[in-house]
């Protein structure tokens, strides 16, 4: 089916400014992805899944300028023992990174996959992204597969002693970064991956995660505080039998963020928890789009998303649970909630359930509301000043999402960042 003319020309305009990396063993995957981008076209506001989030600044050939921002805070996850893998405006920086040497893990740049003959990664690159295009198209992810300039393949075969920390530094006001990572967790292996930083003026990131039977992966992300940055990210995860995938994302500031998480539970008794907390003030648009497919017996999935919005900030949640025929004993849960700190902010939510099995438990809920006046008065009547009482209730509101982080030190770090944001916004 031919694309509408406007969509086709916008897509071609964007593609004209990009160069397909060649000479690697990802060539075939990239070419296939490019064909798919051309066929589906980059999103426009008329598309069902882009009704609430304007894609134009993500589609236009050049990114809008984004001022650099010195946050003055201690580096995120800075106190933790971690293996640092640094990207500056979307390009790996070996000087700033640690030696990529950690027992139980091997890390290689996507560009080096052929030379090092890393078969698993060659086969994974673009594979889960492509599978994740049905039934909902995700054109920016296909664009990423085709044009990603850099990224790493992380192979987890054991239980590394510390987290792998992907750090995204933003140094150019006009950078347009496309990063693509592939991750394989072997049976019984377990690791934590951290991600933080604003990355670029415009950031398109795609992560494909394959967790084998009994493997566990924890992903904790903190998107940088640069006010003017824009980001569209995709996580595609495939979970084998009795595997675990837990993902938490903190977003503080940022004019535009679209985080898509697409999980397919393919082995029995697997577990996926996807959570996020965001706090936004003013010119802030945050979109969580989640799609979880249950395609095996006895799997559990949880989606927990909390948004704190003020001064005209906008929050979007589009979350779906699809339970395929035969995926009996599915336990699915989804909650999305917004705390609107004033009357100018808005929360747009589209929860969806689609169930083809008859022995499942699925629940979903979505709410938006102001601070509980009774609770606020109760705290104030005990002597807690209004601002502090509001902060306490705001942190409590985000608590259910932050609680999804298994590591208590990481959770404490996340809470600390939110507390600092609240104090700055009194």
């Amino acid at each position: 089916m031919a694309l509408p003319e406007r969509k086709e020309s916008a897509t071609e305009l964007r593609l004209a400014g990009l160069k397909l990396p060649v000479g690697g063993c990802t060539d075939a995957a990239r070419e296939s992805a490019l064909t798919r981008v051309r066929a589906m076209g980059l999103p426009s506001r008329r598309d069902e899944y882009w009704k609430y989030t304007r894609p134009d600044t993500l589609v236009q050939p050049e990114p809008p300028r984004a001022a650099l921002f010195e946050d003055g805070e201690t580096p995120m996850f800075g106190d933790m023992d971690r293996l640092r893998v640094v990207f500056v405006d979307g390009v790996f920086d070996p000087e700033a990174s640690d030696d990529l040497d950690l027992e139980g893990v091997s890390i290689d740049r996507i560009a080096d996959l052929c030379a090092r003959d890393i078969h698993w990664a060659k086969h994974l690159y673009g594979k889960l992204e492509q599978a994740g295009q049905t039934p909902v198209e995700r054109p920016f992810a296909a664009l990423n597969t085709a044009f990603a300039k850099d990224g790493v393949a992380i192979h987890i075969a054991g239980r590394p002693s510390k987290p792998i920390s992907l750090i995204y530094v933003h140094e150019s006001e006009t950078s347009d970064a496309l990063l693509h990572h592939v991750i394989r967790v072997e049976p019984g292996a377990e690791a934590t991956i951290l991600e933080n930083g604003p990355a670029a003026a415009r950031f398109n990131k795609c992560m494909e995660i394959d967790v084998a039977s009994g493997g566990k992966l924890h992903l904790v992300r903190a998107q940088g505080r640069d006010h003017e940055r824009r980001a569209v990210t995709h996580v595609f995860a495939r979970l084998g039998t009795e595997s675990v995938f837990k993902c938490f994302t903190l977003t503080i500031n940022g004019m535009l963020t679209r985080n898509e998480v697409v999980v397919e539970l393919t082995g029995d008794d697997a577990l996926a928890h996807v959570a996020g907390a965001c706090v936004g003030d003013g010119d802030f648009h945050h979109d969580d789009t989640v799609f979880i497919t249950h395609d095996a017996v006895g799997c559990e999935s949880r989606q927990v998303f909390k948004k704190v919005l003020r001064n005209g900030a906008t929050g979007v949640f589009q979350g779906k649970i699809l339970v395929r025929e035969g995926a009996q004993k599915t336990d699915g849960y989804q909650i999305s909630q917004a705390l609107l700190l004033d009357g100018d902010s808005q929360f747009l939510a589209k929860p969806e359930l689609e169930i083809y099995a008859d022995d499942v438990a699925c629940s979903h809920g979505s709410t938006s509301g102001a601070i509980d006046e009774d609770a606020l008065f109760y705290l104030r009547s005990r002597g807690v000043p209004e601002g502090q009482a509001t902060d306490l209730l705001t942190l409590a509101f985000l608590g259910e999402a932050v609680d999804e982080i298994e590591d208590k030190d990481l959770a404490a770090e996340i809470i600390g960042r939110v507390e600092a944001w609240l104090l700055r916004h009194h």
Partner: protein
Amino acid sequence: MLKINNLHVKLEEENKQILNGVDLEVAGGEVHAIMGPNGSGKSTLSYVLSGRGGYVVTEGSAVLDGHDLLALEPEERAAAGLFLAFQYPVEIPGVGNLTFLRTAVNAQRKARGEEELSATDFLKEVRARAKTLKIDAEMLKRPVNVGFSGGEKKRNEILQMAMLAPKMCILDETDSGLDVDAMKLVADGVNALRDKGRGFLVITHYQRLLDHIKPDVVHIMAAGRIVKSGGPDLALEVEHNGYADILAEVA
């Protein structure tokens, strides 16, 4: 200590007068009880004194130890020494009871220019006070009032009162929803705090509570005013005869 003078209050949302000239004075060391039929304005009085929104003071004053209460924010009233034990304590999911208590204690100390209590000193005191109120460690860790029984909520109110050491305590139907044993426990907690520097205003429907917390003065409130005041015997009279006789007498 607390001096309420000719207090008139109406609802903010509608033109409905609730209090019609309340006069009341509680001295340090005294326990005053307020009784009265439903809708007489007892709870409104407690809310207006503590600063809850939704009410407009049209006339009169309320002064606590030189502080013009009505000009202060709720948190400032608390720091000035006012405490309201709620009839329906509010559940606050996600805020731990200990965090809440410590935040409140230190916020008040800060407001008064006092040094904050260290974590160790705070824990020591809260554990000791919780023990006498039969509040276990588990209850202290749980979110504020969430999943607490009626009795546990009221004991938690008294624990807060003990930790905050206010000058003036208002108890709004603290006996409601309590069985006999729980009432005794709560009353013992209140009696332990009786002190010549501290006043109590006990709002109740029933004389029963006043068997345990013995008042110095009993007031009868009706149609937004105090219509009769007397000694503890007045509560017994209400218990036996209801309000009809008293109301007829003052009408």
